[in-house]
């Protein structure tokens, strides 16, 4: 067991190293020069441009050889100094990220968790019940098959443009300044609802169908047969089936929550929502190395922590996987 964990920790550390390296390399592989791009915002004379270009590249370290930039990156990463954004010039990367993070988390975490809870309940209830199954299943498939961009167009069209119930873009009313006041918070909620609804609906089908299939397997299991043979009521059998079917679903939830930090680019693009996804889009179009790298770190950590939790939960909760893991390691 200890050997198993030691090996896991080692591979996760390696994955972290490689992931960080790749995420450093990808923005640097982009053609073009971020300093040049930044300075093109200003109307400079050639001499002034030269001087500014030199100072800026020195300040950002883009004139250094690549390996030196890479070492600086690791140093900054470990000391918590993530650099200054090109796009939003004097703002530190961490400030930008922490400004956008609450929007993304408030949007995606409730949507994913709620769809998980409701989808699982629906799916479990539908399993092996003819009438429910024949209604939940087709609806679930249609929801799973909807291309997200379309939902992000159709719902705002219906609820925003035609019926004028909800605003179709932005994180809050454009005339407001973020503050801890009732008007601002109500505006936040008002703008939050439509993007939330689209993400919620589009994730619902997957959970429901997955749970339905899992529960059917569990109900056909020998353990369920044994329970029935003991004279347990169907409700009890179902409750046990639900519990053992929850494990794979939980790992799916952990994975979905692991990548939440990365935001949902399409959602935030479609609704002009001021979260991490839109920040990524801005960072890419402005070649903002430091901003991109900063966001990537969050994503890497999220994915690795989620996977690690799944590994631990499986091994501690489900003895069968423990056996096969050890069998695999021998």
């Amino acid at each position: 067991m200890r050997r198993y964990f030691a090996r896991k920790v080692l591979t996760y550390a390696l994955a972290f190293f490689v992931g960080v390296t790749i995420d450093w390399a990808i923005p640097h592989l982009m053609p073009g020069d971020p300093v040049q791009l930044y300075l093109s915002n200003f109307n400079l004379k050639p001499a002034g441009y030269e001087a500014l270009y030199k100072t800026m590249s020195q300040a950002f370290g883009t004139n250094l050889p690549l390996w030196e930039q890479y070492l600086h990156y690791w140093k900054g990463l470990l000391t918590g100094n993530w650099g200054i954004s090109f796009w939003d010039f004097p703002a530190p990367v961490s400030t930008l990220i922490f400004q956008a993070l609450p929007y993304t988390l408030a949007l995606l975490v409730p949507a994913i968790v709620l769809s998980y809870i409701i989808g699982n309940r629906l799916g479990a209830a539908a399993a092996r019940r003819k009438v429910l199954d024949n209604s939940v299943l087709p609806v679930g498939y249609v929801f799973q098959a909807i291309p997200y961009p379309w939902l992000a167009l159709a719902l705002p069209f219906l609820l925003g443009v035609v019926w004028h119930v909800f605003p179709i873009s932005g994180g809050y009313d454009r005339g407001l300044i973020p503050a801890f006041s009732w008007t601002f918070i109500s505006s936040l909620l008002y703008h939050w609802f439509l993007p939330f609804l689209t993400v919620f609906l589009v994730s619902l089908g997957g959970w429901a169908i997955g749970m339905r299939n899992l529960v059917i397997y569990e109900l056909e299991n020998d353990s369920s047969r044994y329970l029935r043979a003991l004279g347990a009521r169907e409700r009890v059998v179902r409750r046990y089936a639900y519990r053992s079917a929850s494990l794979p679903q939980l790992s799916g939830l952990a994975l979905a929550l692991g990548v939440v930090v990365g935001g949902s680019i399409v959602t935030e693009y479609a609704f002009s929502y001021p979260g991490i996804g839109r920040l990524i889009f801005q960072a890419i179009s402005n070649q903002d190395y430091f901003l991109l790298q900063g966001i990537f770190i969050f994503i890497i950590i999220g994915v690795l922590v989620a996977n690690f939790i799944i590994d631990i939960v499986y091994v501690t909760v489900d003895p069968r996987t423990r056996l096969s893991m050890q069998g695999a390691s021998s």
Partner: protein
Amino acid sequence: MSALKGSSPAPVAVVGGPAPEPAAPAPPRRRGEFLYYALHNSKVIFGLSLELVFVLAAIFGPIISPHNMTDFFASNQPPSGQHWLGTDNLGHDLFAEVVNGLQVSYMVGAIGAVCAAFVGMALGFAAGWRGGLLDEVLQMITNIVVMIPALVLLIVIGAYLKTRGILFEGAFIGLTTWPWVARAVRAQTFTLKSREFVDLARLSGKRGISIVVREIAPNMASYLFLVVILLFGTSMLLAANFDFLGLGPTTGTSLGNIMNQSTLWSALQLHYWWWFLPPGILLTGMVAALLIANVGLDEVFNPKLREQ
């Protein structure tokens, strides 16, 4: 990093719940039995016939379309007898664009599915069969591919290409979605590997590759088949996401492209519903038909799932 990849919560692919119990080595009459159940399963019949309608529309649509995709007419016309799905802001006939988009979506989906299935199965079998260090390394690679922001990678690669074609988009989708296939195949291989008939094959001195190909793969053939169908649908949805962000093929018009154009020209605010509603409805139908056929086939292959 599927948050970027799917951007919308990535379509969660679920194949018939947990590792379906691999069937015992099949007696010869088994194939006829599958066919019998397939032809008597309403989900399979419904899903496949619906899919057939879309495929026929993709093939024959351009022929029956009264207009060419590149012709110009009066712009922003609502649907009429003249233009069945109206026209866009440039005056292109939207029906002609949509049927062309059907073809593009199918092609991207097929290429993506084949690439992902190939890579995922190769790595999944290798990791599951060999286990040990190789397994650990392959799992690490899988984790890293999950972490790489697919969308950013797409933009970076795209910046070097003069044009992004259908082939590129399909291959890119395939090469970033294989991880869950690899995971599933690996897990299945683990459970099959300890079966008696595999031990027997090993005792008879067969090489590893031939055991995997001849003994293990056939026993999960039905599962692999379902995986490919699911990948097909998932790839089409992912392509729609990319296209919607303006990262789709620059040559040719896909369904996602049409939706992207409609947002760029504020079709939403201008009430040009005929521009953005039909492509999404069609794509939903295409993928839903696949999923329904998929669950039906799952019942055909796994007697446990059949309705009693």
